[in-house]
């Protein structure tokens, strides 16, 4: 028996909706089967809290008197992109401080804004008849900004690689510190709790889907950059490596820094831990089966990150159940492995979203448009300009 979004929302409004986290759903589907689970459950909540470099925030500073058309601007010495009208700017999460380098960057600026901290704004301009001011130095916080919203071009990766290092020296990557001679391996997905792994073929997550973003309501704005649905998949539909992605938007002023944290990966740079949770409506038995996926059924591919190339050779496949055991088998050896994405916070997110829905504070939205179900990622070729 199929359910509609409207029927589920009616039940949420009445406080009658049955909501399970994706972990709880995995248990229910394993014990009672997808058909029964589909009848019992209305919504499954997912969660993930990992470093998502492709993130940032648009802000509007308001106009000074006399006004300025900022062309270069800094917040706490971190350069922001101010080439958007006069006083709009985009804070890129991975920008590094001019004075502190990798110890502080755009992601830390965003975290500090969420926490209500004052920060130094500095900007320069060439000056025009209508915007005569050429420089400004002042202090701002989130309450002095007109708007501040996260607009993250690529979040919530549907699966991610397992990283290791086959070289003879330690390497420092966005996948953490990788010890030589496959001395360790790291992985970065919430697995069975991760949003797009619970809706592997994008039946319910699409443009306009209301989500949990950084502790506030947000939306899927667009397919994420490098969205790559055309990949090898398991029989259950989950991809065997990085695949779909989401561009997410949400109000920074409403966010909570427990779910948005500036991060620094040693000798790599700055990134941002972003908390994302997406509700999956259990429309029918198929959705129940998808949302019942377990870590044992989700596999990813191991790559050697010491290969400084775009397409690294796959070293093997491993399930999240194996990764979660703390070590994997690689080239006949036991290799210790560690996560980079916080499973504990992912659980908190799925639990918080569950609470919001149970209390009737969060309704589901049907996608306005589906995410593309096909498509690959284009490489950047080095072209010499001849014959283009």
């Amino acid at each position, binding site marked *: 028996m199929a359910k509609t979004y409207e029927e589920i929302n009616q039940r949420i409004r009445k406080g009658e909706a049955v909501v399970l986290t994706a972990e709880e759903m995995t248990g229910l589907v394993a014990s009672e089967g997808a058909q029964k689970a589909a009848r019992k459950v209305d919504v499954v909540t997912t969660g993930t809290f990992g470093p998502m470099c492709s993130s940032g925030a648009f802000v509007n500073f308001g106009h000074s008197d006399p006004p300025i058309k900022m062309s270069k601007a800094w917040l706490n010495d971190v350069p922001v992109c101010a080439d958007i009208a006069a006083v709009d700017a985009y804070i890129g999460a991975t920008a590094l401080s001019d004075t502190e380098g990798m110890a502080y960057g755009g992601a830390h600026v965003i975290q500090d804004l969420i926490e209500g901290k004052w920060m130094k704004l500095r900007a320069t301009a060439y000056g025009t008849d209508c915007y005569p001011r050429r420089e400004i130095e002042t202090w701002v916080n989130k309450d002095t900004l007109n708007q501040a919203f996260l607009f993250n071009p690529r979040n919530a990766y549907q699966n991610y690689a397992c990283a290791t290092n086959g070289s003879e020296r330690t390497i*420092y990557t966005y996948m953490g*510190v990788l010890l030589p001679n496959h001395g360790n391996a790291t992985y970065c997905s919430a697995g069975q709790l991760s949003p797009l792994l619970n809706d592997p073929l994008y039946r319910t997550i699409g443009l306009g889907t209301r989500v949990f973003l950084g502790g506030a309501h947000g939306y899927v704005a667009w397919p994420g950059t490098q969205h790559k649905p055309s990949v090898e998949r398991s029989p259950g539909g989950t991809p065997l490596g990085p695949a779909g992605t989401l561009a997410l938007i949400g109000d920074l002023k409403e966010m909570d820094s427990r779910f948005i*944290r500036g991060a620094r990966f040693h000798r790599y740079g700055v990134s941002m831990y972003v908390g994302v949770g997406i509700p999956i409506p259990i429309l029918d038995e198929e959705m129940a089966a998808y949302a019942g996926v377990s870590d044992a059924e989700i596999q990813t591919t191991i790559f050697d990150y010491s290969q400084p190339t775009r397409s690294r050779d796959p070293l093997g496949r491993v399930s999240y159940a194996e990764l979660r055991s703390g070590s994997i088998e690689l080239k006949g050896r036991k290799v210790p492995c*560690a*996560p*980079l994405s916080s499973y504990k916070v992912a659980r908190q997110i799925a639990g918080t979203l569950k609470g919001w829905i149970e209390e009737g504070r969060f309704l589901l939205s049907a996608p306005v448009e589906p995410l593309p179900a096909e498509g690959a990622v284009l490489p950047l070729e080095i072209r010499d300009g001849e014959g283009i």
Partner: protein
Amino acid sequence: MARRRLVLTFPPEVVERPVVALLVRDYDVITNILRAEIHEGEIGRMLVELEGEGKRVREGVKYLKDLGVQVEEAITDIELDDELCIDCGACTAVCLPRALKMEAPDWELDLNKDRCILCGLCVDACPLQLITVKF
């Protein structure tokens, strides 16, 4: 007499050689192994205290470096700000003695200082820069 606390990192090809025994025999340096994490075919780490004549200790350290052993001054303690910790697990990737570990069912970071060999690798590995060392 000189005394130095050092962290020695052995590349896999050196792990199987009697490095410490030779240090004692050839350089007359008293070598007290405080903690060690050594497995055949893997990188090994050892916290040692070397005691001997200043010149002999310096020569002993040079002998270790010539073998390809990485020699670093040991720290005396690490401190984790667990209020701000997000339990991501990135630090556990470099902690071979498993002083820092994270496991089912609660996936909370657990620091067991008794197992720590004070190598300090976790300081760089923590994305939130929450681990500090004392020398």
